[in-house]
């Protein structure tokens, strides 16, 4: 690159060799041939066309040469790239050889020119006097600035002008009249000093080299230092300190490997290039930083990004308005009355700032509350550090379990169309017969009624002296008899709804002949008696009966006496007119009992806290104990499949037990705010229900899959309202219709409702 510069400076040197002096001398040897050529060219007499044009031609040549070298340089890089692409080392080598060759050519050029100049110099020896004359002007001309002030511009710009440029005063420098070529040639031929003359195109004048200058040039052409007093072979001063060097210094020649391109690197490069081509290496585009920013933006936003100490900006204050100026316009200033009115206001309502007027800034007093407010602020910061609340943004909908839509789970009871009215007290218990044509109900007014489901007509009424606790219809279709719990009595009633043959059978069964001998322990608590009033059987117990349940086969029925403690559960056999005590030791107060729907000997007893499953045939201890975790169990129902059990409690919770799965509840449903009075399963539809003292009944979809791996699906379906609360009691019993997806609810408001799908 230095070459270029020096060549650009060529013209300066040619137009004014004197001025050039030191700098020219210091410039590298490569300038020399240019200069020399100019000198030579001006000297060459044979070439008639020898003038500035040739000079410029030459310049162009040299320039092109330098350009070539530039090209070459780029070639080198290119070739390197190429080489890496072609993965050939030969290419690399070739290019480096090219470089060398080119250098060699230049050198040889230089040499040729040097020789030429040498030969020319030999001819000049005779003209020494003129050089001395020129020496005088040498010192003076050092100070002379170039006449033309146009600067370093191409002279072609002035080719067609009459002037060549401007002098220091700004006047045009007019071109000299060009001599006729022949005349000038003749004049040159005549003039012996002509060879020293150089035409300065820039200043449009002829310059004559002094003797000194020509010597200088000659020396430079020889390749010597321009000044004669410069000693190129000065004795070597060893500046290096050898003594305290840590590392050994070798004077061995540089190894070859430092000069040849590294194969390993080439391989690495090839590797990278391949990787880039395949796209294994990707270059991230430099991120463009926006050079605009929100000047008036909230500072807090940018602070939030930083993960360090979170700065909570104080709330922004309202910007002051005109009224807060020290000299507001008069309409802002409150009048005396207004000020007085402010005084009468509560302190909270009073305006915080009352505009005042000052004639000048000077007269504004210091803010009287400044100290107080800064103290308050500090106190605030100290006492109530504001902490950013970590809030989790979760869509509450997503936390809900995915349940099927209610529409897909139809049919289920949802609306009440029929009511069974007639009882005068709270209906405590209902029981539909197995065909679904009739329903029996027992009430606190002591009556047991049978209703026609279809029309709501009361068909039969039995009146007793005590409140009816529980009614239960025999599960056999050809055995329409009712078991009714009234106080201490368990009454078996003949409903007379069967056919004649069935009636005969029932009458036979209900006729108490000679009673079989009971155990003493049993006889102490239970006695079988004929019922005079209604012609059934009355089984008298020693405590009040709270719950009655039939065995699915219809021969056995169990009675629960809550106060009976260990003797609280007895099982009656109707066909034998016999009573058995439980062969198992009971713990806790029994609440209700269930016969397993499929397994004949299985018997489930719910005490206040727990549910135990027994096998009556094997007389074992409890097969299973279900830990409900409830405070007080109130009711229990078993899925017709026999593996799932629901338990309702007095705290309003209902537990679903999968008895195969665990002794812990599979699901606990907390729906009712008050006691659950009863729970029920549908015999064929996947439905179950709970009713509560809060006058509602809930209907659920409870599907049990035959696949043991699949858990039961429980979906709440409907809240059935309609019953009114009477004396703090709501719905006392609920039973499903045996064949339709309908639910009967018995309310304390003495109404039985039928909810249909």
């Amino acid at each position, binding site marked *: 690159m230095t070459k270029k510069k020096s060549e650009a400076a060529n013209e300066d040197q040619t137009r004014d060799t004197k001025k050039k002096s030191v700098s020219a001398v210091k410039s590298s040897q490569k300038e020399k041939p240019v200069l020399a050529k100019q000198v030579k060219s001006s000297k060459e007499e044979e070439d008639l066309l020898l003038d500035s044009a040739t000079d410029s031609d030459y310049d162009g040549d040299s320039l092109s040469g330098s350009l070539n070298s530039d090209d070459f340089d780029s070639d080198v890089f290119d070739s390197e790239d190429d080489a890496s692409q072609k993965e050939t080392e030969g290419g690399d080598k070739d290019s480096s050889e090219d470089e060398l060759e080119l250098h060699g050519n230049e050198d040889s050029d230089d040499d040729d020119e040097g020789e030429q100049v040498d030969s020319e110099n030999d001819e000049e020896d005779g003209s020494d006097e003129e050089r001395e004359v020129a020496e005088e002007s040498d010192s003076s001309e050092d100070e002379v600035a170039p006449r033309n002030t146009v600067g370093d511009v191409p002279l072609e710009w002035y080719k067609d002008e009459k002037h060549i440029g401007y002098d220091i005063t700004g006047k045009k420098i007019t071109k000299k009249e060009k001599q006729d070529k022949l005349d000038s040639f003749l004049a040159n031929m005549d003039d012996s000093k002509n060879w020293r003359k150089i035409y300065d195109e820039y200043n449009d004048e002829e310059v004559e080299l002094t003797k000194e200058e020509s010597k200088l040039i000659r020396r430079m052409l020889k390749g010597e230092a321009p000044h004669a007093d410069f000693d190129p072979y000065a004795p070597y001063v060893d500046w290096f300190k050898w003594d305290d060097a840590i590392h050994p210094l070798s004077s061995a020649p540089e190894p070859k490997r430092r000069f040849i391109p590294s194969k390993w690197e080439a391989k690495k490069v090839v590797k990278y290039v391949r990787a880039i081509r395949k796209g294994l290496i990707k270059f991230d585009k430099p991120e463009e930083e926006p050079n605009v920013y929100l000047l008036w933006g909230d500072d807090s936003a940018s602070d939030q990004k930083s993960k360090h100490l979170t700065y909570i900006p104080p709330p922004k204050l309202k910007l002051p308005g005109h009224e807060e100026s020290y000299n507001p316009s008069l309409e802002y200033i409150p009048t005396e009355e207004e000020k007085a009115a402010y005084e009468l206001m509560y302190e909270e309502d009073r305006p915080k700032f009352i505009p005042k007027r000052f004639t000048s800034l000077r007269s504004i007093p210091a803010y009287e509350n400044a100290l107080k407010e800064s103290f308050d602020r500090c106190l605030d910061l100290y006492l109530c550090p504001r902490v950013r609340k970590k809030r989790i943004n979760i869509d509450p909908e997503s936390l809900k379990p995915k349940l099927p839509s209610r529409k897909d789970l139809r049919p289920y009871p949802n609306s009440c*169309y*029929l009511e069974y009215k007639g009882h005068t007290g709270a209906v405590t218990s209902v029981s539909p017969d197995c065909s679904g*044509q009739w329903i029996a109900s027992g009430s606190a007014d002591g009556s047991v009624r049978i209703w026609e489901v279809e029309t709501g007509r009361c068909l039969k009424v039995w009146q007793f002296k005590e409140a009816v606790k529980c009614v239960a219809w025999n599960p056999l279709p050809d055995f329409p008899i009712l078991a009714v719990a009234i106080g201490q009595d368990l009454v078996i009633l003949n409903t007379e709804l069967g*056919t004649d043959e069935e009636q005969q059978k029932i009458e036979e069964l209900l006729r108490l002949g000679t009673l079989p001998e009971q155990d003493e322990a049993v006889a102490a608590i239970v006695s079988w008696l004929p019922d005079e009033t209604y012609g059934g059987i009355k089984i008298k117990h020693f405590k009040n009966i709270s719950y009655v349940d039939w065995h699915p086969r219809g021969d056995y029925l169990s009675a629960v006496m809550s106060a009976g403690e260990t003797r609280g559960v007895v099982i009656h056999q109707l066909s034998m007119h016999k009573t058995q005590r439980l062969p198992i030791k009971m713990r806790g107060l029994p609440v209700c009992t269930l016969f397993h729907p499929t397994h004949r000997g299985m018997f489930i007893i719910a005490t206040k806290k727990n549910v135990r499953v027994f096998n009556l045939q094997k007389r074992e201890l409890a097969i299973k104990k279900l830990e409900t975790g409830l405070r007080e169990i109130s009711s229990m129902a078993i899925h017709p499949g026999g593996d799932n059990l629901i338990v309702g409690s007095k705290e309003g919770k209902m537990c679903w037990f999968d008895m195969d799965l665990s002794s812990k509840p599979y699901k606990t449903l907390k729906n009712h705010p008050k006691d659950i009075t009863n729970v029920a399963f549908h015999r064929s539809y996947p439905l179950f229900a709970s009713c509560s003292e809060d006058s509602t009944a809930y209907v659920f979809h409870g599907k049990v899959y035959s696949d043991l791996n699949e858990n039961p699906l429980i979906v709440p379906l409907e809240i059935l309202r309609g019953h009114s609360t009477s004396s703090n009691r709501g719905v006392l019993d609920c039973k499903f219709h045996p064949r339709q997806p309908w639910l009967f609810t018995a309310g304390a408001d003495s109404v039985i409702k039928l909810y249909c799908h």
Partner: protein
Amino acid sequence: MNGEGEDASKVIHVKFLTKLDYPFKVPVTSVVIPSSVTRLGLSSIVNSLLTLEKPEPFDFLIDGELIRMSLEQFLNAKGISAERTLEIEYIRAVAPRKEEKPSLHDDWVSAVDGSSPRFVLTGCYDGLGRIWSSPGSCTHILEGHTGAISSIAFANSEGAEGVTVATASKDRTLRLFKVDPAESGDSTTRVGAYKILCGHKASVASVAAQKYGSKVCSGSWDCTINVWDTNESTSELSVPGKKRKGNNQAEEPQLEGEAETTLVGHTQCVSSVVWPEHDVIYSCSWDHSVRRWDVETGKDSLNLYSGKALNTVDVGGEGSALVAAGGSDPILRVWDPRKPGTSAPVFQFASHSSWISACKWHTSSWFHLLSASYDGKIMLWDLRTAWPLSIIETHKDKVLCADWWKGDSVVSGGADSNLRISSGISIS
């Protein structure tokens, strides 16, 4: 200008047409009426054109649909242009014009039959069937049942000398009575059954008689439909004294009949049966289905599924082919079994608010049917509109049964123990 334009848009040229005869016929001229006029307005316009002594309510049909909103809304809803002259057909409004004196029973009236124009039959929860020749005058009492009568029907009503009546009861039997209408005097005669049909294992819910034959069929809670013969001669055994408790019918010789055929297929109580054709029985059941049975083969040839427990079914309408059924929800559904590939009801009428206990097609009109519901209302329906034509709210409790009588009256019985007759319904 603008106002005039608006006025013009609200005016419709109409022409009133009718199939009615002289006193109700208006001259066929185009009349300009405002488009905001409703059915009542149209009715008053026609009345003013007729200049009748007593105003007569009319119903109006445009393109076979009854108008139940304002004329403008109707035209907009149907996309009928108001530019041309509209042809509006009018008919006399289907509504009872007279309420007869109620006939009080001893118990709930559970069944009613008005298929004979001479009498109305009623069945009652006290186990007695009654024959009423006119409102308030009971000519015969049919006794013998030990349970509530659930259904009653004229069997072989064509016989001139006597009428056979079949009753179904919750005491699991059906009884057949022979009644001579001529002998009825001022006092009521008590009639005993000449034949007892035993065979059902549970309450009989419904009975229907063959139209021109000697057979009756019955649906029961034991899920079966039995077909019986009513003929006296074919009775196998006579039971002089039955040993049923509290049944002192020993004086009259009684025949006991057995079922000819039993149609098995329903899975729950058969709540209603109808016998519209010679050997086709329609039945509906609490198992949510309506079935059509072929008596000859004993197979069901059609099974419509409704999704609700059904209480009542009737066949009628266009070509006596439409099936209407109602049950444990307030919607009366009408199916067209002739439509292939679909079991969806073609009409659904949902104005009741409780179970539907009875529905009957009008015997002569293809469009009209009635429905009775536990909400105490009887509604008259026209297939040409989704709104009830009229609502009879004379009962104070559940309506358990209802039927057409004489083509222009509705007889109904309910839990208020009354038989009520609403007459003067003009159905052309």
